[in-house]
């Protein structure tokens, strides 16, 4: 018999001070990089998920159960993420998972979650292969993060609009980096076929996680003298690269401007050291999404109050959304069964902290979430740069065309059918025709 628990909601929780009766407790799992290359992201996501669980519990929980986060450190490694996922499912009996940080981890976790029929809401790892390639796809995997096709397309259009001729690429060498860089190059070439990538494709990628020294890449950029550097390196890698490049020359990013993936975490860590004038693309920067957005404003206030004044990063915003989406769908399904919950997700529309509603496209269970682009500039309101002239690109304009999704799912774009990570959208008949 499930234990009955009485908890008192406290503080500024949404439902106020009222007693909530629970049938028992259910756990939601998250394999978190609390250490290692992406520790910064795991820290933010964990905080957001705990806040989301508190908010949900203050409103009565999910299906009458109190929700408890089960967060286990994976050190930003694949083997530990796999071990955590197995332990959370088989020992802790989690009813849902939140997607890990890196695509390599998610790629390894997804089959385990699928086999055990545990729904996963993914708000960080974002390789499009995770929701489309038939060798990988998991019917219980929901992506509410702009995937690598959407993000690479946004970056490619951003770079093409800068009117540059010579571009240098640097990217982490694993599924995410390769997938996003391919989408970037495709969108760039589509918008401006004369643009030249100055480094050989085999040198686009750096080992991940990498040596903390970036001398080779910085020197290669100096030698190639590009008009623009495109990068999707992130977390500790981006911070080390920026610091070491600025030591080589404070004008490094003036000489070699960058179009780069950024999150509030990198901006906040480097603060005033973060270069201005960077052409950034971001997933959910709170400072660009808060106009006329009382829901986000309330979240920021409560997040900062709970976590020593920290600003919520993009990861915190997206994972709060992920948890809330799952909770709403599970409540609508009146069940924790993955099939029932997915039915309440697929094709449905949800509120989001991002200031717009998001809809989950049934074909690949991908949300039509947007991407924010702009140029870094100093801010008097925050202790780190923000974006000027920022634009929130609409997810619907970035999503992969349905025909292409269906071709990928039908193995028409697969370099080696039957093997994971071999699908390439550039091989799709509809892409070639376009």
């Amino acid at each position, binding site marked *: 018999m499930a234990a009955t628990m009485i908890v008192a909601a406290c503080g500024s929780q949404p439902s106020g001070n009222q007693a909530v009766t629970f049938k028992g407790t259910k756990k939601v799992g998250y394999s978190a990089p609390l250490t290692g290359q992406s520790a910064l992201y795991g820290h933010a996501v964990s905080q957001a998920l705990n806040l989301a669980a508190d908010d949900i519990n203050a409103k009565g929980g999910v299906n009458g159960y109190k929700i408890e986060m089960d967060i286990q450190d994976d050190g930003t490694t694949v083997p530990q993420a796999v071990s955590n996922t197995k332990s959370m499912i088989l020992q802790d009996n989690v009813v849902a998972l939140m997607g890990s940080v890196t695509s390599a981890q998610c790629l390894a976790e997804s089959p385990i979650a699928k086999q055990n029929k545990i729904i996963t809401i993914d708000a960080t790892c974002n390789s499009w292969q995770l929701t489309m390639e038939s060798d990988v796809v998991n019917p219980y995997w929901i992506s509410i993060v702009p995937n690598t096709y959407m993000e690479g397309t946004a970056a490619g259009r951003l770079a093409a609009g800068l009117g540059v001729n010579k571009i240098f690429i640097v990217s982490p060498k694993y599924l995410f980096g390769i997938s996003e860089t391919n989408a970037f190059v495709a969108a760039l070439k589509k918008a401006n076929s004369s643009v030249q990538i100055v480094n*050989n494709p085999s040198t686009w990628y750096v080992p991940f996680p990498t*040596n903390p020294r970036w001398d080779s890449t910085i020197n290669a950029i100096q030698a190639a003298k590009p008009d623009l550097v495109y990068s999707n390196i992130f977390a500790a890698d981006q911070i080390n690269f920026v610091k070491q490049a600025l030591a080589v020359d404070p004008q490094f990013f003036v000489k070699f401007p960058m179009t780069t993936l950024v999150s509030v975490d990198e901006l906040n860590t480097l603060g005033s050291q973060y270069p201005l004038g960077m052409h950034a693309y971001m997933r959910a920067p709170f400072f660009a999404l808060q106009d006329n957005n009382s829901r986000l404003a309330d979240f920021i206030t409560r997040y900062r109050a709970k976590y020593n004044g920290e600003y919520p990063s993009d990861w915190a915003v997206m994972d709060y959304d992920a948890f809330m989406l799952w909770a709403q769908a599970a409540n609508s399904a009146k069940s924790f069964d993955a099939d029932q919950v997915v039915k309440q997700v697929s094709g449905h529309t949800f509120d989001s902290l991002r200031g717009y509603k998001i809809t989950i496209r049934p074909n690949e269970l991908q949300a039509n979430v947007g991407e924010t682009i702009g140029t870094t500039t100093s801010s008097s309101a925050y202790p780190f740069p923000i974006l000027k002239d920022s634009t929130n690109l609409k997810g619907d304009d970035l999503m992969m065309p349905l025909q292409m999704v269906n071709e990928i799912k039908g193995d028409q774009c697969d370099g080696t059918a039957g093997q994971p990570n071999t699908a390439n959208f550039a091989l799709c008949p509809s892409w070639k025709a376009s």
Partner: protein
Amino acid sequence: MTPGQLLLFAVGGLSNAAYLFIVAAGLSLVFGALRVINMAHGSFYMIAAFVTVVIANQIGAQLGFWGGLLVAVAVTGAIGGLVEVLVLRRVYGREHLVQLLGTYAVSLVVAGGVRIVFGANYRTVASPIPGHVDLGGYSYANYSLFMIVAAILIGAGVWAMLYRTNLGRNIRAAVADPDLLNATGVNVTRLYTTVFVIGAGLAGLGGSIVAPSQAISSSIDTDVLVLAFAISVIGGLGSIIGSAVGALIVGMVVSYGLVNPRTNQFAIAFVFIIMTAVLIVRPRGLFGLPEN
């Protein structure tokens, strides 16, 4: 590749080698003298980096960094002394696996403690030696050049300590025959503590010097340890000259390997291929001495 580019990548390789040597020097010293593979070496390095960043950010990058460096070396040396007395004395002379487990346990305790004390967020500090040198159309960071000089000085200092001082003579004698050294009136137990304190202090020096060039987090202890061990194995565990040569090989292989389209994909693998080849051909490393 033009001569200017050759120089550019050579200096890049040297910077990388300097960074790795600074970390590996203390590791090698401790193994050479105590025959202990110290898995907690990265922990001392990490503690020193945090101490340096905190102090430098409190009182300014210039004075703060140098003050922080001194404090960090003192703190890591003191912690090293405690670890030697409380942990290592119980595992000397036992098989390497026990020593590995003992020092690994220390590294886990330190990692947890650092996370509690300093939190999960990355920390950064401005360079105490800003500026750059332009040569042949390319820029070189003053701080990278400083790291190269610091590595040379550290290497020379450790070598001089080992081969030009009474302490060094005793350390070498302890490696050869600790019982005989003890019989001559030298307190070998205290000597071992001294060596470990110096090794920990060297790790601290490395952490302080590296701090302005990268993000400091509670995982930098493990980031560096794998390559530091590779260097020590290539050069010969226990040999300072070997560590320098090993670092140079690894730094250059990575620097040139990553920018060459033909070798980019294997640049890091080359390091371990070289390490494996050395282990097959000369298991004690290029400059290592056979164990008694």
